[in-house]
């Protein structure tokens, strides 16, 4: 088991952001983490990746206890997280951006830049490599986030709403890229709202609502699960939908 999360909890000043969340991610799979806004998904990510200290619970990565480690230590072990709001290194070129990730395991500038060029091309950024990162479109920046993450050699990627802000054709492209990443042996846990992407990518998914885990299954199962429908559409919505279908 690549990632084992057990009983993760976090309270922020009286508000229970995450309550007793447990999940498993198998090596080589793509797993979804879903739920309406404010459900606690990103907080889970920040706890797993070491940016936030969990109040209670454990995280094991590739059999190793990583609870309480700092983000850079976790990254060195092979897990990396991307950010919901994309954060390129503005003053650097695209290639230099990716190289910052590559430097983790390639200490020489030439090696790091070569690896960066290679990954950049694989993710369709070949033409933009020498341009400033600030010149990229949103879709380009998302690819850059992915490229930078891959350059660190991470085996497990935590992708936080990587589809946000993209138009359908761009979504398709990123879906393809993520599939490609999986086929190269990586494992992916993704937070996502865009259902189209979730249906196409996630083998199974966990659903959070108000900090609690309320469902787990394949996307098909989840879509017809009343508690999931209610989480997104409100109390009683599931029953109303049922009525609508029977009518």
């Amino acid at each position, binding site marked *: 088991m690549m990632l084992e999360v057990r009983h993760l909890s976090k309270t922020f000043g009286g508000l229970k952001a995450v309550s007793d969340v447990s999940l498993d991610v198998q090596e080589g799979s793509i797993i979804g983490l879903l739920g309406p806004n404010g459900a606690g998904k990103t907080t889970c990510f920040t706890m797993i*990746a070491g*940016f936030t200290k969990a109040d209670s619970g454990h995280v094991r990565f590739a059999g190793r206890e990583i609870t309480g480690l*700092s*983000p*850079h230590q976790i*990254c*060195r072990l092979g897990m*990396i*997280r*991307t*950010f919901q709001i994309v*954060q*390129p*290194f*503005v*003053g*650097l070129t695209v290639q*230099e951006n990716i*190289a*910052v*990730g590559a*430097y*983790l395991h390639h*200490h*020489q*500038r030439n090696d*790091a830049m070569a690896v960066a060029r290679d990954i950049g091309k694989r993710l369709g950024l070949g033409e933009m490599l020498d*341009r400033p990162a*600030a*010149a990229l479109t949103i879709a380009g920046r998302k690819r850059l986030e992915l490229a*930078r*993450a891959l350059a*660190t050699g991470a085996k497990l990627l935590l992708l936080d709403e990587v589809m946000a802000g993209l138009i359908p054709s761009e979504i398709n492209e990123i879906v393809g890229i993520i599939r490609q990443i999986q086929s190269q042996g990586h494992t992916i846990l993704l937070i996502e709202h865009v259902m189209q992407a979730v249906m196409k990518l996630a083998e199974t998914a966990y659903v959070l609502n108000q900090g609690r885990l309320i469902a787990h299954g394949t996307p098909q199962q989840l879509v017809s699960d009343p508690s999931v429908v209610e989480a997104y559409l409100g109390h009683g919505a599931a029953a109303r939908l049922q009525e609508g279908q029977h009518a």
Partner: protein
Amino acid sequence: MRFQSLGQYGLVLFAIVYLAGVYFVSSPVWMGFTINALIVALAALSWNITGGFGGLSSFGHAALYGTGAYASAILQVKYGFNAWIGFGAGIAAGSAMGALIGGLAFRYGLKGSYFALVTLAFAEVLRICASSFEWTGGGSGLQLKLMPGLAQLQIVDRPWIYTGLLAVVALVMLLTALIQKSRFGAYLIAIRENEDAAEALGINTYQIKVQAMAISGAFGGLAGVLYLQLWLFIDSTVVYGSAVSVEALIGPIIGGAGTVWGPLLGTLGLHLLGEGTKHLLPNSPGLNFVLYAVVLICALRFLPQGLVGFAARIGVLRKKDQDDA
């Protein structure tokens, strides 16, 4: 050295021509003036490591400069050590002070304005201490015994001083360039741009920042030590005073923070301007600082990337980007 534009080549050429030309000017005043400017340029290069590349603006760089000077002076005056020992000790002391201040400040998560203020506070504490204790010469400062000769690092012949300083400045600039192209440099710049993203990519941001302060401290201590060997006298106001801290940051900001040539160009440019005003308005202490301040404000408003950044847009050599936003 490859630059992006004709403008940048022009700037650097101007600097080199000026620095070479000093040898041939008959009046020794120019050489003396440039020697002073070069020492300030070293302090500026030191500031540039953390303030320019790291985005950690320090308002108290005198803390590093002064510590280097005092370490060397104390060893020579109070304990009779040789000047070269003092030289090495000064650099080491500057580096250690940098690591200490950085280690504490970053441990407690200080950045931005708070970091600037805490460095200022450290410099002031050191200044007050240096002027209060007998060990550091108290209010009267420390005076080196006049012992001309290379053995005690007291060079008398002005052209040799000048050449030596040029070599040191060139060396520090070379080291800066190497840092810029290294893994450490890439990490430092990444931290400046976005610390969280850098952390997520496996960078131990605390360690890198403290190391940067240590390197900056070494360069700062070097500048302080050279000042001592040049003037043979230091006191707390001269080496721990705010003037040093201010000059250390003005040059790079105007010349171009985070570039290799920025600190030197900015410092030279400012000092030349200052010297010009001294000729126009003789006997006016402090007016050159007024001028520096005016130039700084204009630079902040109109030249956010400094002279180097501005020159980058004049006569661009690479193919121009098609859709530059």
